[in-house]
């Protein structure tokens, strides 16, 4: 049975008629046209679908819509402000911290949640946070460096 669910998506209030048992990733990708979050494994094992719900990184492939109600969801599409790249996005570009780019939205959102909660992370905190996000191209070293650069530039704030 469909239900009307209210939540915030990328800063805007949303009201959606949807089966509460449906999965956030597929609703984002097929119903809402937000294809930034990617399917990689379907079992919260790779992180390609990572989005932020109330400041925490979650795997949208394993979140039901009913658990999104009343919350604030941010996807990669919501990271730019006034057409300007977020410092993390900018740092990924400047460090060439990607190859095929398929894991990139999930990597950036996961790093974003780290900076939200630990604005000055150590290298080992970065590695610990990113451990569950997989990249097959092997951009890991540059991703770590990009996160360090972004954190330094932001000087302790998440935006």
């Amino acid at each position, binding site marked *: 049975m469909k239900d009307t669910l209210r939540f915030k*998506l*990328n800063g*805007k209030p*949303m009201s*959606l*008629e949807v089966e509460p048992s*449906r*999965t956030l990733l*597929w609703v984002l*990708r*097929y*119903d*809402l*046209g*937000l*294809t*930034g*979050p*990617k*399917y*990689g*494994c*379907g*079992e919260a*094992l*790779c992180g*390609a679908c990572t989005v932020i719900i109330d400041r925490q990184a979650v795997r949208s492939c394993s979140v039901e819509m009913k658990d999104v109600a009343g919350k604030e969801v941010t996807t*990669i*599409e919501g*990271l730019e402000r006034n057409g300007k*790249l977020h410092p993390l*996005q900018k740092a*990924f*570009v*400047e460090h*060439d911290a*990607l*190859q*095929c*780019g*398929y*894991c*990139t*939205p999930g990597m*950036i959102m996961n790093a974003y949640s780290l900076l939200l909660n630990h604005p000055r992370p150590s290298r080992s905190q*970065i*590695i*610990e946070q990113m*451990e569950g996000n*997989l*990249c*097959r*191209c*092997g*951009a*890991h*070293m*540059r*991703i*770590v460096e990009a996160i360090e650069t972004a954190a330094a530039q932001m000087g302790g704030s998440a935006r």
Partner: protein
Amino acid sequence: MKIEKPLTLEEENLALDFSGIITDPGPAFHLSRREFFKLVGGGILVFCTAPRTMAQEGGRRRGGGRQLPEDFNAFLRIGEDGRVTGYTGKIEMGQGVITSLAQMLADELDVAYDSVHMVMGDTALCPWDRGTFGSMTTRFFGPPFRAAAAEAKAVLVELAAEKLGVPKERLKTRDGAVYEVGGSRKVTYAELARGKKILRHVKGAPVETAADFTLVGKPELRRDSVEKVTGRAKFSGDIKQPGLLCARILRPPAHGAKLVSVDTSGARAIDGVQIVHEADLVAVLHPDPETAEMALGKIKAKFDQPKPYADDKTIFEHLLKVAPRGEVVAEGGNLAEGRKAAASVVDETYLNSYVAHAPMEPHTALARMEGGKLTIWASTQTPFPLQDAAASLLGIPAANVRVITPFVGGGFGGKSNIRQALEAARLAKLTGKPVQVAWTRAEEFFYDTFRPASVIKIKAGVNKPGLITFWDYAVYFAGARGSEQFYDIPNHRTMSYSSGWSASEGAHPFATGPWRAPGNNSNTHARESQIDMLASKAGVDPVEFRLKNLKDPRMRRVLQAAAKQFGWTPAKAPSGRGLGVACGTDVGAVVAHIAEVAVDKSTGNVQVRRVVCAQEMGLCVNPEGARIQMEGCITMGLGYALTEELKFTGGDIHDRNFDTYIIPRFSWLPKIETVILDAKDKPAQGGGEPAVICMGAVIANAVYDAIGVRMLQLPMTPQRIKEELSRA
């Protein structure tokens, strides 16, 4: 319901095309020159007919196929606005040629790098291409591409001479314009192209030499990263079509299993589900992938499973049993003489498991059939072979099939397998609707074309002064690539059993295929481990031993460069330091790696602390891109060296996701240092694969140096290391 940023059909139809000039070619996919102009606009188009380098690439393809383009499909276009578009049948899957090809084009044409746009992997617009693999883009597509740019420049100079009334000899090109040398007259490319429809074939205008390069050889950041960090980059699964149906297909429990009976009534009862059952194909379709998935779960099917003839433990024995006759890859001297001259002989057998490609993007495709014409958007490394295969499957002319390749989310050889796109094509024809086939991770593992398991046997000897006297090498099922040794050995023979990664029927329980530097990872692990053992027998430091037995100047140079960068100090292995070295060659490039590891004897766990890689690849078009590829190779290579191996019983593949199939993670990361040796006067060689080939050997040699045990089987799992330690 509000969609924040609705996507227009135009945007969705785009291939890899940042110029925004092409939307949909309309009904005619097989374009005449006139139609091509109509589609892309006027200007100057340069074609290339069968240049030697392309013929070399094309000549190696198996069976028949098409000739290189002659009547349509340009290599580049200079638009009436001065914008330059480069067309290539190659695709972008992370390897970065979208950047390096644009650099080459801009440099040769003397235009600003930012004015160049690339259209890639669209069979309606791009010149025929065999596929993106074998690190061939820069090596084989690069030269004709540059030649086309040189030809375009010659046309522009001719036009300028006429327009300015100045002889050609007194004209020079710079920044998208033609100038009079020592004069004031000038005309831009845009002005020259305006109102023109000029077609030109490459006649042989001279290309730049290294001294003329302005962009080539300079590090350039990726040009696709803004799209990729914002989520705007379109991969195949991000393409939508009105009326799109998501398909889920009934899969057998194991390879070789036959469908005996099927009951689809449970799925049929679900609202909006469409079912297709034609011969071996049973699929459920629904606009939303979750409903399709649920419906698939309601299908009851019985399969007959064949008796498994091997599993991941017995496979090596099986492979040796079924191996075909060997072929000589290389030989010289006299093995018996060499054996007589040896003071010690090392006789070893190396094993290597099946390894998955596991790109982060599973195989995905969308197919739409309208008026007898088929369009496929696919994550593929081979758009043109897919075009032919889809045409033949559906029984329509290839000219009625267009393949568009959006960004590909990793390939590594695995996306030369086009199965998912053919499934989508078949379902689009059967349903008359646009159909998306997006494999789940389990399907991706099941239908992967794995790197084959292999056995390598080597007998080799060394004399008292530390020179290798003979080398008797036999590789089973890895393939010959990288099997030929390059040391200065007077008596040697290299045999390869099997035709490489494709192998004969009855060898592998499932499909096998090319995996980044096919064959070379297994061959280099075996060869460089054996060389290390000979060094130990001779009581010589492994770097010194290699140099003593190496004449090849390129190989010596990379080895010396790696040793210098690392700060290598000679010692006999095992020294307890945990240092290893390995050399290799692939796709025309040579590499040497040095690694430092720490081994935890109680857990068997190996932590790679540092990897230095020196590479000579001829002309390096984009040193930044080349470094990223080297780092990627090193990081990816940690996986096949340490953890990656497929578990299976016959055709039943046990690994279906990343919980049991372990690929490299952030915490594994060593300090990586790359050195690219200057060779800009030599032709460009491959860069996407060479640095992966030494990773098994360099870690195995470092593990030996650390704990004194030889790891002859990859991957070097903690369990295997503990077993070897207890045996020692």
